[in-house]
């Protein structure tokens, strides 16, 4: 029944276009669509509140268009992504959908399922207002396929000031050497050095992603994904060795924990350091914890001056039935107004360099300042550097290594190399 109703809507849209003689290739036609269907899984908490802010902006500009969130309306819940997938494959796309910016879109791009948005970047001035590193990473063969609405930072070191004082640590470690020295201090003080979350493998993969970046620097790291750095070479081997050493300071029973559980070890003072993306701060704020007393932050050791980012973005599928409504939405997504409505609530920063910082909390203010001056590098496990196939294989490789007691370094390097190959296939 769903299917037939999509057909109906598509047919109706086609007739409407034919009758009004409106050409669908005109990029900037005014939005006269009656509805706009989107897939987004921001359904609760700060994410939903932020999304609502953007929707309000959209509705103010497009009062005649009804906003339909198919991921919620369809009741598909966790299956939303699979439903989206099947609709794209059946050439019945929604008008826009949410996906991580970067290589996560690779499958859609190669399948010819997304429209090139480069002209929109030019007409809206985004090519000037987004950082050049970001534009460079988003560009695939000269084309940009998505509009980032927010930026999260992956390489953040979170720590508990109280526990650090107890262990005799007064400032955040800036290099890997200082990091390991501090882990040793935590150990002597009887505190777990590093909080780990093994469930679902990705949080451990997140740790490895940072460690590889910290061990080899941004150029070599990016080389891993363009073929100029070998996955089985000495740089990766050294990175894995550091990774192994860091894991040995981890908490027991990490395999059961999801990242909020591991984060709680830090905010409770039971563990020293935690490497996690900055959504952790948003979570803790909503739990009523205070930045500065319950937890504090620094750029992850070895990556000071490097901003490892990930981003949620919206796209324009080829054949979107309400294309003009979708373009109007993408304009809101990329606008200062839209991003500043969304991000303070979501707990992320605006991808734009001109956002109104007075709306953001202290952590986000400092992140936004770094965003403007740091070297920007994409995250692997959150879809910037690796596509879905690469990420699935990468996580499994790390999961295998971790559950096997983190002994087989050569095996991990081999499996990571295979994951990179899987991404190219």
């Amino acid at each position, binding site marked *: 029944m769903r299917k037939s109703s999509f057909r109906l809507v598509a047919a109706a849209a086609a007739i409407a276009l034919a009758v009004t003689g409106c050409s669908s290739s005109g990029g900037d036609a005014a939005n006269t669509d009656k509805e706009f269907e989107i897939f987004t899984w921001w359904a609760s908490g700060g994410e939903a509140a932020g999304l609502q802010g953007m929707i309000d902006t959209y509705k103010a500009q497009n009062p005649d268009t009804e906003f339909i969130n198919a991921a919620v309306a369809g009741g598909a819940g966790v299956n939303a992504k699979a439903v989206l*997938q099947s609709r794209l494959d059946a050439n019945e796309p929604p008008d826009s959908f949410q996906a991580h910016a970067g290589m996560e879109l690779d499958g859609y791009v190669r*399948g010819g399922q997304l429209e090139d948005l480069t002209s929109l970047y030019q007409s809206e001035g985004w090519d000037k207002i987004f950082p050049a590193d970001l534009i460079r990473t988003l560009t695939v063969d000269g084309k940009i396929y998505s509009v980032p609405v927010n930026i999260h930072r992956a390489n953040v070191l979170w720590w508990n000031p109280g526990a650090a004082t107890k262990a005799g640590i007064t400032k955040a470690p800036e290099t890997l050497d200082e990091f390991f020295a501090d882990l040793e201090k935590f150990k002597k003080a009887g505190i777990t050095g590093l909080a780990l979350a093994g469930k*679902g493998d990705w949080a451990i993969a997140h740790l490895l992603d940072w460690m590889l970046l910290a061990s080899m620097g941004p150029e070599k790291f990016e080389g891993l994904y363009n073929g100029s750095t070998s996955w089985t070479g000495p740089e990766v081997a050294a990175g894995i060795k550091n990774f192994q050493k860091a894991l040995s300071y981890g*908490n027991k*029973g990490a*395999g059961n924990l999801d990242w909020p559980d591991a984060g709680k070890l830090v905010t409770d003072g039971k563990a020293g350091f935690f490497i996690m993306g900055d959504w952790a701060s948003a979570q803790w704020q909503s739990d009523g914890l205070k930045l500065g007393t319950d937890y504090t932050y620094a750029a992850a050791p070895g990556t000071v001056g490097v901003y490892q980012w990930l981003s949620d973005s919206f796209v324009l599928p080829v054949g979107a039935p309400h294309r003009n409504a979708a373009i109007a939405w993408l304009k809101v997504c990329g606008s200062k107004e839209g991003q500043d409505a969304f991000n303070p609530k979501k707990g992320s920063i605006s991808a734009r360099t001109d956002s109104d910082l007075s709306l953001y909390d202290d952590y986000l203010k400092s992140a936004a300042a770094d965003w403007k001056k740091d070297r920007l590098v994409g995250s692997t496990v959150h879809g910037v550097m690796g596509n879905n196939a690469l990420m699935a294989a990468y996580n499994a490789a790390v999961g295998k290594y971790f559950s096997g007691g983190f002994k087989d370094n050569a095996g991990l390097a081999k499996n990571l190399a295979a994951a990179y190959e899987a991404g190219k296939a």
Partner: protein
Amino acid sequence: MSKAVRNKRSLSARVGGLFFVLPSIITVIIFVYGLIVWSINVSLTNQNSGAKKEIEYVGLKNYTDLLVDERFTHSLLNLVKFTVVFILGALITGFIMALLLEKGIKGEGFFRSFYLYPMAISFIAMGTVFNWLLNSARDEEAGGLNLALQKIGLGFLQNDWYVSEKGAMYAMALPAIWQMSGYVLALFLAGFRGIPDDLREAARVDGASESQIYRHVLFPQLTPTLLTVLIILGHISMKAFDLIIGINGKSYVTQVVAVYMWEATFDKRDYAKGTAIAIVLLIMIAIVVVPYLRYNNKQQAYR
């Protein structure tokens, strides 16, 4: 009433009946058998990524690739471990409980539903709870079963549960056993009740002891029940997905075939591989179920 009239009537009744079941027959043909054929078709092609546009047939390549795919053999081995422990565990606990109830204790009805209730809980809800119970932290940090073991003085039994590479699938079988043993109990109890009392009395008259009655008279009569139990547990086990996802997500260490199939299909968008895994799983289940269905049909024809 002449014979011809009766035949005619039964014919029209049959046609009417056919009309009633026709919708379900059609939907089953399309959505079960049709999609099986469709899946087989996809599994023989090179649709190894969502981006593939020129689709070609590659024969059994996707299947032979599975044989050398370490991820697949890992998930298959995990499934075998899980199945063996789960079936044996549920069978033994369920059978022992049935035996105890069969002896006629007070409040049998209460115990029957008491042990059957776990079945009413969804695997996902149960997975969340067992995730807490099977906490791998030990000693002073312990929680869940490890803590319980300490409290009753069996601290040396604390272990990593599903987190360790070796024991993961055995630990995963625990919640499944907990849930399904009540069902096994009910099946066996029904089996015991289905045996006519005359047989026991006859055996007693012939001077058989109580244990001899069980061994030589009652147990052989339970063979069909045992077969039913094995089939039901076997196919539940092979399809294991929600329990695993509920407890440990898609983590590598506890990945089984159905979870890997999901990952291949929806994460990697390797449709050819995903369908190939699905067909392998279908064949495995068919090997278990089909002989049973044939056996059952024969039994029915017998009556």
